[in-house]
C-alpha cells in the first residue's frame, strides 16, 4: 500500500489550498511554510461586479492614486483622478536634462547630458517588494540590478583616521577579525563558561578562527589568509613577481573609530539586502507606465481645496492651478491619496479621530543632489562601480551610478542624500550653495578629480516641494498605537490611501499595498451599501 503513496509536493499542496480556501488561505499557508513572508501581496485584487454607473473620485496621481484608478476601472467603476501638479507620478519622478525643478523659493533648469538622470525620490526596489515588482512586470517596466553595496567604496568619519576615508572592505574585515579575536580570548579564558556548553564553546572557537581569519594563536593580524579577504599591498600576479604581499590591518581602536557597525547594520536590514533593482532609464518609468493606462482619467493642475460627503456621495471642490477657475467634482466614493502634510491643512469632512491622526503625523525632510561629472573617474581611478561611499558630513553619502559602467562621457553621481540635520542644512541653502557644499564635502573621497571633473548639478529639497512639503510620513510606536487604525479606516464614502497609510513608510511598496487594501474595502462597502 505504502508503495503507491507519494507525498504531495509543496506546490501541489499550495494549489489545492489555493483552490479551496482562496488567496487569503493560500497566503497564510505559504507564510507558515516560510514563503511569501516578505510582503502582504498575494496577487492583484480580483475586484469584479461594480454596480452599474458607480463612480469613484481619486485624489492624487501618485502611485497609490493611479493604482487605485487602474484596478477600480478594471472592476467596472467610472473613475476620475484629480491631480494638483501638471504631471503624474507624485514622488515617483526622475530629473533629466531640460527639466525644471520648481521649489518654493527657487527655480532650477537641469543641464544633464542626454541619457543621464537623477532619481530625486525613489531609486531602489528590494527583491521582496512584490507589489511593485508585479506591476512593473504587468505594465512592462524594464528593471535592472541596482548596485546596493560595494566593498571597494569608502567610509568617511570626520574623527576617524584623521579624516581620511577608508575602504568599506578593509573596515568590515578588520572589525570581524578583532571581534573574533576578542571573543576567542574570552572563551579561552573561561569567561563565557557559564553561558555556553563545552560543545558550543569548541564550535565557537572554531568559528572565530575561521570566520575572523585568526592565526594558530587565535590572533588577528597581517597574513596571506587575511590578504585574501582584505586585499593586498601587492596583489597576486604572474611570473617572477607573482607572489602577493599582504597589507597591514588597522588596529582595534581605529577600526572602532569608523563605527563601521552602522553600515553593517544598515545593509543587514531586510529592506536593504540584495538583490536590489531599479527601473531602467529612471524610476519615473513606473509612474509613466501607470499613466499610460489611466492618464485619460486625470485632470491635471487641479488643487483640491475642500472635500465633503453625505449619504449620497462625495464632493471635491477645487481651483484650477493655471486659470484660477473654481469647480466641483462629484462621485459616489472617494480614494484620497493627498499626503498628510497637505491633507491636514484642507477642509475635509471626516471624523475628528482622522483629523487628529493627520495632525499627529510629521514629515521628515531629505535632499538629493545630482552632480554630472565629465567622466567616470571613480571607476577608472578608484575601481568603484556602483554602490555608495558614506560620510558623516551633511551630504550623508555619494552614490555611484550602477548602470552604464565602463562607458565614456559624462555620468551623474548622487552627490547628497541626507536625512536629519544634514537634510535641513542643505534644504535651507540656495541651489547654487547646495552644489558648492556637495562638491566641497564629496571631494573628501576623490580629492584629485571631484571638482576638476564637475560639469553641472541639480538638487531637489523635499520640504520645498509645494505639493508635499516634506519627504515621507514619520510614525512612532506611540502615534501608530493612537492613530494608525483611525487614519486607514473607511469614513463614510471616503478612504485614505498612500505611503502614509502603511507600515511600509517611504517605500513605493507601502503606497501600493495601502492602495490595494483601501480599494478592496471600498469595493466591499460599495457592494454592500
Amino acid at each position, binding site marked *: 500500500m505504502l508503495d503507491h503513496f507519494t507525498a504531495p509536493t509543496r506546490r501541489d499542496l499550495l494549489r489545492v489550498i489555493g483552490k479551496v480556501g482562496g488567496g487569503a488561505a493560500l497566503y497564510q499557508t505559504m507564510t507558515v511554510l516560510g514563503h511569501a513572508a516578505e510582503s502582504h501581496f498575494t496577487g492583484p485584487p480580483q475586484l469584479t461586479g461594480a454596480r452599474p454607473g458607480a463612480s469613484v473620485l481619486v485624489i492624487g496621481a501618485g502611485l497609490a492614486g493611479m493604482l487605485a484608478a487602474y484596478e477600480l476601472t478594471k472592476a467596472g467603476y467610472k473613475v476620475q483622478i484629480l491631480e494638483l501638479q501638471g504631471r503624474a507620478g507624485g514622488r515617483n519622478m526622475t530629473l533629466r536634462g531640460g527639466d525644471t525643478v520648481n521649489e518654493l523659493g527657487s527655480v532650477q533648469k537641469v543641464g544633464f547630458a542626454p541619457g543621464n538622470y537623477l532619481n530625486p525620490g525613489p531609486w531602489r526596489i528590494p527583491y521582496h517588494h512584490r507589489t511593485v515588482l508585479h506591476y512593473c512586470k504587468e505594465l512592462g517596466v524594464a528593471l535592472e540590478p541596482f548596485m546596493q553595496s560595494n566593498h571597494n567604496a569608502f567610509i568617511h568619519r570626520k574623527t576617524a583616521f584623521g579624516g581620511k576615508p577608508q575602504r568599506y572592505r578593509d573596515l568590515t574585515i578588520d572589525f570581524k577579525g578583532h571581534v573574533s579575536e576578542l571573543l576567542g580570548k574570552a572563551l579561552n579564558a573561561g569567561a563565557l563558561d557559564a553561558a555556553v556548553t563545552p560543545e558550543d564553546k569548541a564550535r565557537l572557537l572554531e568559528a572565530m578562527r575561521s570566520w575572523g581569519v585568526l592565526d594558530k594563536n587565535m590572533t588577528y593580524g597581517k597574513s596571506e589568509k587575511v590578504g585574501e579577504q582584505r586585499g593586498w599591498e601587492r596583489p597576486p600576479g604572474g611570473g617572477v613577481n607573482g607572489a602577493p604581499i599582504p597589507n597591514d590591518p588597522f588596529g582595534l581602536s581605529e577600526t572602532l573609530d569608523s563605527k563601521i557597525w552602522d553600515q553593517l547594520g544598515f545593509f543587514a536590514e531586510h529592506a536593504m539586502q540584495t538583490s536590489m533593482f531599479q527601473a531602467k532609464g529612471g524610476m519615473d518609468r513606473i509612474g509613466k507606465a501607470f499613466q499610460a493606462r489611466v492618464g485619460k482619467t486625470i485632470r491635471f493642475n487641479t488643487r483640491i481645496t475642500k472635500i465633503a460627503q453625505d449619504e449620497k456621495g462625495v464632493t471635491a471642490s477645487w481651483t484650477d492651478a493655471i486659470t484660477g477657475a473654481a469647480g466641483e467634482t462629484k462621485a459616489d466614493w472617494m480614494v484620497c491619496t493627498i499626503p498628510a502634510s497637505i491633507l491636514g491643512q484642507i477642509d475635509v469632512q471626516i471624523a475628528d479621530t482622522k483629523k487628529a491622526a493627520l495632525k499627529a503625523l510629521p*514629515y521628515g525632510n531629505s535632499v538629493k543632489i545630482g552632480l554630472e561629472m565629465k567622466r567616470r573617474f571613480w571607476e577608472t581611478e578608484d575601481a568603484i562601480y556602483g554602490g555608495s561611499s558614506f560620510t558623516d558630513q551633511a551630504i550623508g553619502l555619494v552614490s555611484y551610478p550602477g548602470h552604464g559602467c565602463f562607458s565614456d562621457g559624462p555620468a551623474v553621481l548622487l552627490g547628497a542624500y*541626507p536625512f536629519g540635520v544634514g537634510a535641513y542644512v542643505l534644504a535651507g541653502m540656495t541651489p547654487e550653495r547646495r552644489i558648492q557644499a556637495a562638491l566641497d564635502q564629496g571631494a573628501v573621497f576623490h580629492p584629485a578629480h571631484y571638482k576638476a571633473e564637475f560639469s553641472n548639478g541639480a538638487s531637489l529639497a523635499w520640504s520645498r516641494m509645494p505639493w508635499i512639503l516634506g519627504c515621507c510620513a514619520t510614525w512612532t510606536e506611540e502615534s*501608530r498605537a493612537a492613530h494608525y487604525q483611525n487614519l486607514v479606516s473607511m469614513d463614510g464614502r471616503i478612504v485614505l490611501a498612500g505611503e502614509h497609510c502603511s507600515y511600509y513608510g517611504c517605500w513605493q511598496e507601502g503606497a501600493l499595498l495601502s492602495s490595494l487594501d483601501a480599494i478592496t474595502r471600498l469595493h466591499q462597502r460599495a457592494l454592500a451599501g
Partner: protein
Amino acid sequence: MLSGTLSLAVALAQASPGFAQDRPSNGESAVEVSAEGREIYEQICQSCHMADAKGCGVPGAMFPALADNPRLADKDYGSIILLKGRGGMPWFAGMLTRPQIAAVLNYVRGHFNKYQDTVTVADLDRITTANPPVPDCNCGH
C-alpha cells in the same frame, strides 16, 4: 535626569522612524548645530519657513510665516510646537538641545518679531512637565 532620559528616547524615536524607511544609512551625522539663535535658524528652520521667515506656499499647502506672527506673542506657543511637533512639522526635541531650542525661539521672537521676553530652558522644562495639548494650527496666518 528625567528630562535627560526623555530626550534620549525622543532622539532614538527620530533616528529610527518606526519601520525601516528608505534612507541613506544608519549612524549619526557629525554636522554640529550651532548654539547661536540666528545660526540655528539658518541651519534648520529656513529649510521650510524660508530665510526671511515669511513662510511660503498657498493656503491649504503652506509653511506659516514666523515673522510678524501674533501667535508667537505667547512665549509657550513656539516652545510647545518645537517640543511636540504639529501636523507636518516634526518635533525637534531630539535634534536640538533645550538651550538650542530656547536660543532659536528667542531669535525668532526677537528678530522677526518684537517680543522682548525670553524663553528659558526652565520654561521648556515647565512645559514638558505640564504637557499641554498642541495648539491649533495657524496655517491661515
